C-alpha cells in the first residue's frame, strides 16, 4: 500500500470524467513501466469485512491487505466465504437480494462503499473474472473484448485495433483468435472463452483484477495457460484469485490467505507469503488443509 502516494489517490478517485481517469491510469502505468520503479496496480485493503445473506452470517471479520502488484490467493474448503469475500471487494455482493455487509474496502485509501461513490466507476477499476466463462454470446470476439468500453461509455486513448491486440495478447489469446475476431464468441473452447473474459476485463484497464475460481471449469491445459496469463498480468496490476486448487495457489500467488468456516460464519485463519503458508503454516488448521488432511 505504501507504494502508492496520496497524490495519486486523490487524482484517481476524484476525476469525474471516465475518459480522463482512464487516460491518467494509462499514463500512470506508462510512467511506472520504467525499470526499477514500484509495482503497478493499486493496493486494496479490506477492513473488518462481514457479510450476510439474509439472516445467515456468511463471513466474519476479515481484514486483509493486498499490496499493489501482488497476486494473492484465497484458499479454503467450500462454504468458507472466500467467494463471498471477493465479491465484497468490487461490490458485486450487493446484487444478491438480501445480501448485506459491514466493514470497509479501501481502494487507494478510499472506501468504495462510501455514500456517493459511483459504483460503476469502482467496478471499472476493480475488474472481475468469474468461475464460469461468460462471454456475451451475441457479440463477436472483438466486440466482447471492447464491450467494457461500450458498457461503461468510456473511450480508450488507444485505437480499437491496438486495444484489441494488446488485451488479447496480454490474456494469451491473440495468436489463436487474431484471424477470427469477427466470429461469435460462442465458438471458442471453454479455456479460450475464459481468456477472452480476461481480455475483456483488461480492456477497461483495471487496477485490480479479481478472479473467482477462474480455472475450475477448465481442463488442465487451459488452466496452465491462464496461470501463465496471471503471471504476466501481475506485472501490471494487483490480482486476487480464489481457488480450490492448492497447487494453483502455490504456483501463481505471492501471498496466500486461508479461509475456514467451523459451522459458523467463515473467517480468515491465516495469511502470509505463499511459500510460508505451504511449508510452515502457523495455524494447525491451515496445515491440515494444505497438507490435504481435509477439505
Amino acid at each position, binding site marked *: 500500500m505504501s507504494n502508492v502516494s496520496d497524490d495519486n489517490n486523490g487524482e484517481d478517485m476524484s476525476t469525474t470524467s471516465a475518459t480522463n481517469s482512464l487516460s491518467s491510469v494509462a499514463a500512470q502505468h506508462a510512467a511506472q513501466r520504467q525499470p526499477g520503479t514500484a509495482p503497478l496496480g493499486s493496493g486494496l485493503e479490506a477492513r473488518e469485512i462481514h457479510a450476510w445473506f439474509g439472516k445467515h452470517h456468511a463471513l466474519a471479520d476479515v481484514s486483509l491487505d493486498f499490496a499493489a502488484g501482488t497476486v494473492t490467493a484465497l484458499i479454503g474448503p467450500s462454504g468458507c466465504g472466500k467467494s463471498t469475500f471477493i465479491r465484497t471487494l468490487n461490490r*458485486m455482493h450487493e446484487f444478491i437480494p438480501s445480501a448485506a455487509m459491514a466493514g470497509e474496502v479501501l481502494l487507494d485509501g478510499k472506501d468504495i462503499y462510501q455514500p456517493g461513490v459511483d459504483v460503476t466507476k469502482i*467496478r471499472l477499476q476493480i475488474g*472481475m473474472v*468469474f468461475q464460469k466463462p461468460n462471454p*456475451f*454470446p451475441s457479440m463477436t470476439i472483438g466486440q466482447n473484448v471492447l464491450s*467494457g468500453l461500450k458498457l461503461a*461509455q468510456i473511450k480508450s486513448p488507444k485505437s480499437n485495433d491496438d486495444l484489441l491486440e494488446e488485451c488479447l495478447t496480454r490474456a494469451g489469446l491473440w495468436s489463436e483468435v487474431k484471424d477470427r475476431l469477427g466470429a461469435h464468441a460462442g465458438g471458442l473452447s471453454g479455456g479460450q472463452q475464459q481468456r477472452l473474459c480476461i481480455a475483456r*476485463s483488461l480492456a477497461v484497464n483495471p487496477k485490480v483484477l479479481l478472479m473467482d475460481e477462474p480455472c475450475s471449469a477448465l481442463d488442465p491445459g487451459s488452466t496452465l495457460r491462464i496461470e501463465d496469463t496471471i503471471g504476466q498480468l501481475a506485472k501490471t496490476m494487483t490480482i486476487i484469485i480464489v481457488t480450490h486448487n492448492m497447487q494453483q495457489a502455490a504456483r501463481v500467488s505471492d501471498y496466500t490467505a486461508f479461509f475456514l468456516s467451523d459451522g459458523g460464519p467463515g473467517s480468515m485463519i491465516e495469511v502470509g507469503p505463499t511459500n510460508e503458508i505451504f511449508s510452515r503454516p502457523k495455524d494447525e488448521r491451515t496445515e491440515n488443509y494444505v497438507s490435504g488432511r481435509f477439505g
Partner: protein
Amino acid sequence: MTFTANPPKAIPEKRQITTKPRVSDKIFRGVLTVMSMSSLLILTLIGLFLSLRGFQAFQTQGIGFITKVDWTAGVDGSPDTFGLGAMIIGTLIISATALFVGVPLSVLTALFLTFYAPERLKRALVTLVDLMASFPSILFGLWGFIVLMPMAEYWAQLIHKYLGWIPIFGMPSPAYTRSPFIAGLVLAIMIIPIVTSVSREIFNQTPLDRIQAAYALGATRWAMIKAVVLPFGASGVVGGAMLGLGRALGETVAVYSVLNIVFKVNFQVLYGFGGNIASMIVGKWGEASLTESKALLAAGFVLFVMTLVVNLLANFIVRRTVKTGK
C-alpha cells in the same frame, strides 16, 4: 508371445437399439398423443369446415374474392360481388398499429417489472397486467368508444399536424373518429398483457452470469440491459408479439365497437374508416342471405389462413434474424 498385426475385422452391423415400454407407459403415451393430436384435429376441422362452406364464394368470385374491394349482395338475381381486399388490408393495418404501439410499451413495462420495480409494486403490477389479459374484449371496446376515442381524436390531430407529410398520416377531410388508428390503440391495450408477460418471462431467464459480467465491467443498469437482456430476450419478445398479433388479427368485438367499417382501401390510419375481417363478419352475419353467409365463412377462412401465414412468416423472420443471444 508375439505380436502380429490385427487381422482386418469386418465392420459389424449396426445394432437395433430397442426399449420395451411398460404397459402403463404405453397407455400414458397414448393418452398424451390423443390429447395433443386433438388440437391439431380441431384446427384442421375448422379449416375444412370454413373452406367447404365458403367454397361457393371462392368459386363464383374467383381471385376477386381477395383482390376486389366491393361487397354487395345481389338483389333479385343480380350477381353478387364479394371482394375482401379492403378488409384484408384494413386488418393488417390495424394489427400493425396495435403492434407498433403495444410492443414497445409492453417491453418497457416488462423491463421495469423485471429490473426496476420494487418487489411490492412489482407483485401488484404483475397481478394487474395479468388481470388485463382476462378482461372481456367488449369492455375494452366500450371503453375505447366512450373514453379513449375523444382523447385519441386529439392525439390523431396532433400526429396529423406534425407528421401529416408522411402519407399514412394524411387526412383528406377532417374525420378523426372511428379510424384504424383508434382501433389499433384499443388493440394495443389488449395485447399489452400477453406481450408483457411473455417478455417478462424471458427477461427473467437472462443468465445471471452474463448480467454479472456486464456489471463487473462497470455497466450501468441500462447499459447492461442493452448489452445482455435485450439480445437474449429478442426472440422471446418477438414470440410474445406474435401471440399479440394473433389476438389483434382476430379481434372482433372491440374493433367492431370503435371502427367505422367501410369497403374501401384506406392506408391513412388516422382517417375515419377502415376494415377488419373479423368484425366485418360479425357486422354482416345477422342479416346475411344464404349466399352472403357462405361468403362470410369464406372470409373467415381467409382470416384463418392469414393468421397461419403471418405466424409462419414471423417464425421464419425470428429464425433468420435472431440467431445469437442464447
